[in-house]
């Protein structure tokens, strides 16, 4: 287990290094001058040069990248912004705040959104999938299958505004989506995030319904399930204790892969409902060509995905005793 973790973490670090380098070089390849953003309306060339120096942009690209890397460990000191304690991902070109702080600040929103949506996706998707599998071929199964096909075909940017329009504006059934810290008011946290959760999870839920159903059907045809039945286990036991375990393995795997997609979905969802999460931060960074922020968000996003994938692998070992973490 320890060996496994050490190797996986090392691998993850390499991946993150590659991603950061690619992103760094790629984004810096955009023909633009961020220094211009720090210069007044009527900008003197000397001022521009001063700003470039302040930002460390007068150095070769690989030196800049090196500074960026060391900043994460040791912190940096910018003339333009002041001190930036470790872990320093630089300062935003747009808001002039430390990138790391901004991300930490936004983290609870995105975490609430994705965790909540994951719960909806897994709970609802798996439950409906199991119901469908339990009632294979019966009307309930057909309804579940049909609605999951439609759900899987929907787009966040189509459903989001429509639901908001009808549920919030027209019918006023639920409050307008926003983020209330759970520490402040758990109830409001819940009610205000309901719509985003639903919208973000619609597409995924449908997929998990389909997947759970087909996995369950497949597992129910497995030999060991037949053995369980031959042992006199009741249908319920067979279904929930035996087949379920087997069906969960591919679902956990797919969920690990989906996390990246879910994060992408969170971007659109946050954008749709104006939630100040990391996704929204990212989109603004893109719009502003806010390189440090973009880089920071990309790295944090990638880190989240990589770490969660390790978690999924560990989880995998718990679900499937055949898998050994070595």
């Amino acid at each position, binding site marked *: 287990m320890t060996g496994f973790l050490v190797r996986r973490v090392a691998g993850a670090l390499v991946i993150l290094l590659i991603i950061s380098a690619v992103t760094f070089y790629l984004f810096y390849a*955009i023909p633009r001058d961020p220094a211009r953003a720090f210069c007044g309306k009527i900008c003197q060339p000397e001022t521009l040069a001063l700003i470039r120096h302040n930002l460390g942009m007068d150095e070769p690209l690989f030196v800049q990248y090196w500074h960026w890397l060391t900043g994460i460990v040791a912190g940096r000191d910018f003339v333009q912004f002041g001190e930036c304690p470790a872990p320093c991902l630089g300062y935003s070109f747009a808001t002039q705040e430390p990138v790391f702080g901004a991300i930490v600040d*936004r983290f609870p929103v995105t975490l609430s959104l994705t965790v909540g949506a994951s719960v909806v996706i897994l709970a609802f998707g798996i439950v409906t999938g199991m119901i469908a599998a339990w009632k294979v071929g019966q009307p309930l199964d057909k309804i579940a299958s049909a609605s999951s096909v439609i759900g899987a075909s929907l787009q966040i940017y189509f459903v989001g505004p429509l639901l908001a329009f009808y549920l919030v504006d027209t019918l006023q059934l639920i409050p307008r989506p926003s983020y209330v810290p759970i520490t402040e008011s758990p109830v409001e946290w819940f009610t205000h995030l309901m719509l985003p959760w639903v919208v973000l999870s619609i597409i995924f839920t449908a997929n998990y319904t389909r997947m759970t159903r087909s996995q369950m059907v497949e597992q129910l045809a497995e030999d060991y399930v037949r053995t369980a039945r031959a042992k006199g286990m009741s249908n319920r036991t067979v279904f929930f204790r035996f087949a379920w375990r087997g069906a969960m393995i591919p679902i956990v795997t797919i969920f690990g892969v989906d996390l990246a997609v879910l994060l992408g979905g969170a971007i659109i969802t946050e954008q749709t409902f104006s939630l100040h999460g990391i996704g929204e931060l990212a989109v603004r960074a893109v719009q*502003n060509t806010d390189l440090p922020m973009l880089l920071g968000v990309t790295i944090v996003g990638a880190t989240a995905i990589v770490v969660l994938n390790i978690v999924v692998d560990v989880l995998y070992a718990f679900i499937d005793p055949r898998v050994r973490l070595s």
Partner: protein
Amino acid sequence: MRSHSRRIASITAVLAAGALALAGCAKGGGGGAPQGAAGTTQTPLENKAVSAISVGTAADSAGPAPEVPGAKPGGTVYMIDRDDFSHLDPGRIYLNYNSSVSKLFTRTLTAYKHEPSGDIKLVGDLATDAGTTEDGGKTWKFTLKDGLKWQDGSPITSADIKYSFERLFADFITEGPDYAETWLVPDPNKPFRDQYKGPYDGKELDTIETPDDKTIIFHLNGEHPDFNFTVAMTGYGAVPKAHDTKQKYDKQPFSSGPYKIVSHITDKSMDLERNEHWDPKTDPIRHAYPDKFHMEFGVQAQQSTERFMADTGNDKYAFTFHNAVAAERVQEVLGNPELMKRSVQGLTPFTTFYNINTKRITDINVRKAIIAAWPSKQIQQISGGEINTGKIATTVLSPTVLGYEAFDLYGKLAKPEGDPEEAKRLLAQSGNPNPTVVYAYNQTPTQEKITVAIKEALTKAGFKVVAKPLNPTTYYDAIGVVDNKYDIYWGGWAADWPTGSTAIQPLFDGRLIADNASNYSHLNVPEINEAIDKANEITDAAEAGKAWAAIDRMIMEQAAIVPEYYQTYFGLYGSGLGGVKFDPIEGEQSALDIYVKQ
């Protein structure tokens, strides 16, 4: 302001912060008459100057500000907007949006006072009057009022003011205006930072004299008769030496105004509370009725419009500095008298226009043909009509600038949809009936559509149009290159203060052409350059106004730009608020007279 229209700025949210910072603040003058409740039909904003701008007296400068009828102190006012304030350190402020909020906690030597009549007066804010000069603008003297205090209760002294100017030379203060810096060093033609490096290494700037705690004297290196307008810019606001946290000051400025910042979470929220040490008797422009302000950021125009329309919960007590009614909801809002009662409307100091690169299109007839063929009406329709954009413009100067004169050299108001026949005639004169023009545009959804219309209209007139999309984040970098390969590209501007000098000189003085400079049409006509110099020396405001209007006409005769709009602002606020007014100087809602209805 370099945002094409609020629609583009707010909805597609693609303008780079850079562009926003560049956009500068709206120190334009003149009063687009605020039109509070305009009923269900839109009241047309006339193309006429409403420029009752004057310099106020010491009496005008004395506090307290005249009471707003019906206003009572107390309550919390909410503010929702798309963006957080990019800067709060006065030295780094150029953007109108930052200025609007700074007025709540940063005071300047002079400020604009909005008379109930709609007239605007430049009055002393920290100073007892709008400043005095006896040598045509080379030496300026200001005297501080009594009873001025920082938020910790310590007095605001002339040394603080001097220090506020000195620190503008520091290497990290690069975003704000640099008029004063350039004028306060011995040689205006050399980089000012080479001549003084700021106060942090202990050196003082000897061109600012503080004979006592109340008096401050500026010795400029030239005649600047409108220097008292210059120091009204938030960029020259007061910063205390004892509490200057350098870079950190940008997030937590030390208050000299009626409120202080109690918390500021970047991009999310900012909370203001009363500054008990602020004395209303010293302040001619601020009321400070609410006890608190809670500001929320990240609300797109679409959402803020919806929230104002819904008018529930705390949104009842909300206003917005900058967010306009989302273009797609304008129709709905205009049709709802109840909403119109809670709307704010007015002409901003911003003008927008299409630069014609005179370096590439040297034939004036081709330039005139472009203006003639231009589909102004179609563009306005695509952008959501007049209320979302502005009045179709025909001049360089905005009606909000002192001295503005209305004229329409190319008959655009008669044929706003474009006159292909006239354009063809002009092209025939030029000798090339089918010139190729490169139209570069900011690649945003609205701009793409506008491009379709422009291409169609110009093609009809015989042009061959190459449409060149530019990345919104690098748009200004691309068109800012002197040797750019584009012929027509959009731009916008607002004067830094309501005289013609900052409205015209940066854009059309041929001697200022440089990479990243703002003379995007690259116009370099000696007569115009000379006229600019002359106009700059006129000390009488009305005379100067006339001179600038004449230059305006000269520029339009050169067909250097296709004027687009005099921008309008149209915003909503919650039903629980009173005293929400349009600020024609900043071109957005003002927080100074706001109160919670009780």
